[in-house]
C-alpha cells in the first residue's frame, strides 16, 4: 500500500497506481516480436505463440501475413483461420471491420509497419492494430528495427537503404510485452544465401550493429516497464538495472574533466548521464558564468541536466540519486587548504558514508 511515512496514503502514488491498473484494463494487450533484420525468425515466433495459445483453447485468428512464406511458416499459417485482407488498387490492407465482427480473443498481425494503400481508413497498419486493441482484441505482431521511425536515420546510415514504412517508437513502448528475437548474424546470412567474403564481412558488421540497437531498444522498453511497475507497486526506491551516472558540479569543480569522464562511462555502459547542480545562494557573477558554460557543456554531452533546490547539498544529492536509481556519483573536491575537513569531516565524507550501493568517484580540483 502506498503511504506516507505518517501512514496516510500518498494520493499521488495512489493515482499512479490506479492509472497503471486502468491502462492494463482499458485496452486489450499488445505483444510485439522485435527483430533486427529480416530472416531472424520474427514471423515464426509470432505464429508459434499463436499456435500454443490456440492449443490452450484461446480463439486465435490471423489478421495479416506476409505474401511470400517459407515452407516452415506456411505450414504454421495453415493451422489458423485467416481473415482475408481487402484489396484496394495495387495494394491490400487488413480487414479491420471483418476482424472486429469476428471478435477473436487474439489476432496475429505480421508486418506492423505496412502502409495501407490509398483509400483505406488508416494510412498505417499500426493504426489498424490500435483499433483492434481498443475493440478489446489482443494483438500479437512482429516488426523489424529498421521500421522504427526514430531510429530510421541511424539504421539508414548503417544499411544504406531507405525505408518508407515506419512505426512510431511510442507505439512500441506502449506495448504490454516486447520480446526480442535474437539470432547471430552469421545464421541470418546463411539463410539469405552465399556472397563473397568481403561482402559477408560488411554485412556481418552491419547486422551486428543493428542487433545491438535492437537489444538496447528492448532494454529501454523494459526499463520503462520496470519504473512504472515500481511506481505503481512499491514504496521503495527504484532498481538500478542500468548504469546511471550522476555528475555533481559546482562553479569551482573541474567540470570539463568530470563531464567527459561521465560521458565516456555512460557511453560504454549504454547508460544514462545526469549532470546536477545544487543551487547556491549568492553566487559571484564570474562563478555564475562558469557554471552556465559547464551546464551547456553537459547538455552538449547529451546529459540530462537537473538543478536541485538549495538546502543541504548532501541530502539533495542523495535523495535525487536514490529516487533515480543512480549507480555512480561523481564529485569534485578541492586539494587546496583544508582538504581534511572538506573531504572527511565535511560534505563528501557524509556523502560517502551514506551512499548505499552507489560508487562515489572523487575528482580532485
Amino acid at each position, binding site marked *: 500500500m502506498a503511504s506516507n511515512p505518517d501512514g496516510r496514503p500518498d494520493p499521488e502514488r495512489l493515482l499512479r497506481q490506479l492509472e497503471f491498473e486502468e491502462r492494463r484494463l482499458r485496452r486489450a494487450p499488445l505483444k510485439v516480436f522485435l527483430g533486427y533484420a529480416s530472416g531472424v525468425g520474427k514471423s515464426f515466433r509470432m505464429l508459434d505463440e499463436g499456435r500454443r495459445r490456440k492449443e490452450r483453447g484461446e480463439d486465435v485468428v490471423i489478421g495479416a501475413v506476409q505474401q511470400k512464406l517459407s515452407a516452415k511458416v506456411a505450414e504454421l499459417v495453415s493451422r489458423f483461420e485467416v481473415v482475408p485482407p481487402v484489396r484496394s488498387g495495387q495494394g491490400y490492407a487488413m480487414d479491420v471491420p471483418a476482424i472486429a465482427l469476428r471478435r477473436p480473443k487474439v489476432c496475429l498481425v505480421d508486418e506492423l509497419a505496412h502502409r495501407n494503400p490509398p483509400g483505406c481508413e488508416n494510412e498505417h497498419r499500426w493504426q489498424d492494430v490500435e483499433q483492434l486493441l481498443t475493440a478489446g482484441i489482443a494483438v500479437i505482431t512482429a516488426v523489424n528495427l529498421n521500421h522504427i521511425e526514430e531510429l530510421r536515420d541511424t539504421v539508414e*546510415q548503417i544499411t544504406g537503404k531507405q525505408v518508407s514504412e515506419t512505426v512510431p517508437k511510442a507505439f512500441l513502448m506502449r506495448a504490454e510485452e516486447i520480446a526480442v528475437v535474437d539470432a547471430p548474424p552469421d545464421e541470418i546470412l546463411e539463410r539469405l544465401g552465399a556472397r563473397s567474403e568481403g561482402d559477408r564481412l*560488411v554485412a556481418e558488421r552491419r547486422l551486428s*550493429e543493428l542487433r545491438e540497437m535492437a537489444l538496447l531498444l*528492448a532494454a529501454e522498453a*523494459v526499463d520503462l516497464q520496470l519504473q512504472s*511497475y515500481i511506481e505503481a507497486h512499491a514504496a521503495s526506491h527504484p532498481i538500478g538495472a542500468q548504469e546511471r551516472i550522476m555528475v555533481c558540479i559546482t562553479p569551482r569543480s573541474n567540470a570539463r574533466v568530470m563531464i567527459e569522464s561521465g560521458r565516456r562511462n555512460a557511453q560504454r555502459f549504454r547508460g544514462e548521464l545526469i549532470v546536477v547542480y545544487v543551487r547556491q545562494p549568492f553566487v559571484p557573477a564570474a562563478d555564475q558564468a562558469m557554471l552556465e558554460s559547464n551546464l551547456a557543456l553537459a547538455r552538449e554531452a547529451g546529459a540530462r541536466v537537473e538543478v536541485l533546490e538549495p538546502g543541504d547539498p548532501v541530502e539533495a544529492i542523495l535523495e535525487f540519486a536514490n529516487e533515480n536509481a543512480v549507480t555512480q556519483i561523481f564529485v569534485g573536491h578541492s586539494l587546496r587548504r583544508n582538504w581534511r575537513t572538506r573531504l572527511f569531516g565535511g560534505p563528501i565524507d557524509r556523502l560517502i558514508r551514506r551512499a548505499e550501493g552507489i560508487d562515489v568517484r*572523487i575528482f580532485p580540483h
Partner: protein
Amino acid sequence: MTGATRNRGRFKTYLGYAAGVGKTYQMLEEGQQLKAKGADVVIGYFEPHGRRDTIARCQGLETVPRRRVVYRGAEFEEMDTPAILRRNPETCLVDELAHTNVPGSERAKRWEDVVVLLDAGINVVATMNVQHLESLNDQVLQITGVRVRETLPDWVLKQADEVVMVDLPPAALLNRLARGAVYAPDKAERALGNFFKESNLVALREIALRQTAHEVDLRQPEAVDEPGRAGVTEAAPGAGARAERILVHITSSPNTAMLLRRARRVADYLHADCLAVHIADTGKGMRPAAAESDALDEHLNFARRLHIETRVLEGEDAARTLVNFARSRNVSQIYMARPRYSLAERTAGNFIHRVVRLAGDMQVILVAEHRPR
C-alpha cells in the same frame, strides 16, 4: 572440422534471465538443426526439470551417459567429460554452465569441463542465466535479495564466440510457472514467492538485454572501409583519449570480493586493464593474525580467478606505496572499498584521506556494499 589438426572448438551460449525462459529448449533445437544438416552432435549434459516440451526436443539426439558420483552417501550425476572426449563428437550440448560439480569431481565447475572440451576441439553449445555472472553478483543481491552462489567468471563468457539472448516477457514466464511448465507445483509456489517476483524478473531481464548488447558490441567485427558511410558506434580509444587502467586495493576486509567484482565489471566496460595490489603494512611492526592472512589469500586468489593481475608490496607508508605503485603502472583509477566508519575502521578512513590527497589527477572510487532492498 577439416584438416588433421583440430583448432579450439567453437563456443556458443544461450543467455537467459531465469529458469523457464527457454534456454535449454533453444539449445536442443540447435542440436536438432545441426544434426539435420549432418553434423555429429551429442548431449553432454541436459537438465530435464521434468519439462515435457524440452524432453521432446531430445528425441533422436545421442546422449553421453552421465557419471555417477557418490558423495556423503548420496548419489549425484555429473557430466562425464572423459567419456565425451573419448566419443569425440563435432558438437556437444551442455546445459547450465555455472553449475558447481559435486565435491570430489575432477573439476569444481561445469564451465571448467567445457574449457576442456573446447581445448580438445569439440564445439560447445551451452546455456546460462545472466544472474550467474560473477560481476553482477552484488547487483543481483540488491535487486532480488538473493545471493547467487553458483557463479561464472566474466572472462568465460567473454571467450564465447557467440552469445544469444533467449527472451521471454516476464508475464509469459509467470504464466508458464503457474501452469506448472517450469517447476513441479510445490517448487513453483516457493519460486513465485521469492525470485520470481515480477519486479525481479523485469529487472533481471533488462540486465540480460543490456549484457547481451554488450557482448554483441565486444564481438563487433572490425569496421570495414565503406566510403560515404558514417559510423554509429564509438571508435576505439585513439589519440586524445587516454587508455584507462584500473587498480584495486586488496585488503583482508570482507567487502574486498564485492570491490573486485565491481572493478572487474567497470574495467570490462571501459576496455581498461585491471590489476590489484595488497600493501603489507610493515610500519606497524606486527604480523597479521592468521584469520586475516587467510582472508587476504582468499581475496588474492579470487582476483586471479577473475583474471586480475595481483601484486603484494611492502611499505611503511601504505598510502604512499599504493599511490607510487599506481603511478608507476600508469593507473588512471584507484578502486577502494568504502570504510565502514566504525571506530575500529577509523584508520581506514585516514588511509583513504591520504590516498586521495596523494593521487593527484588519478580518480579515486569508493565502492559501497550493495544491500538487499
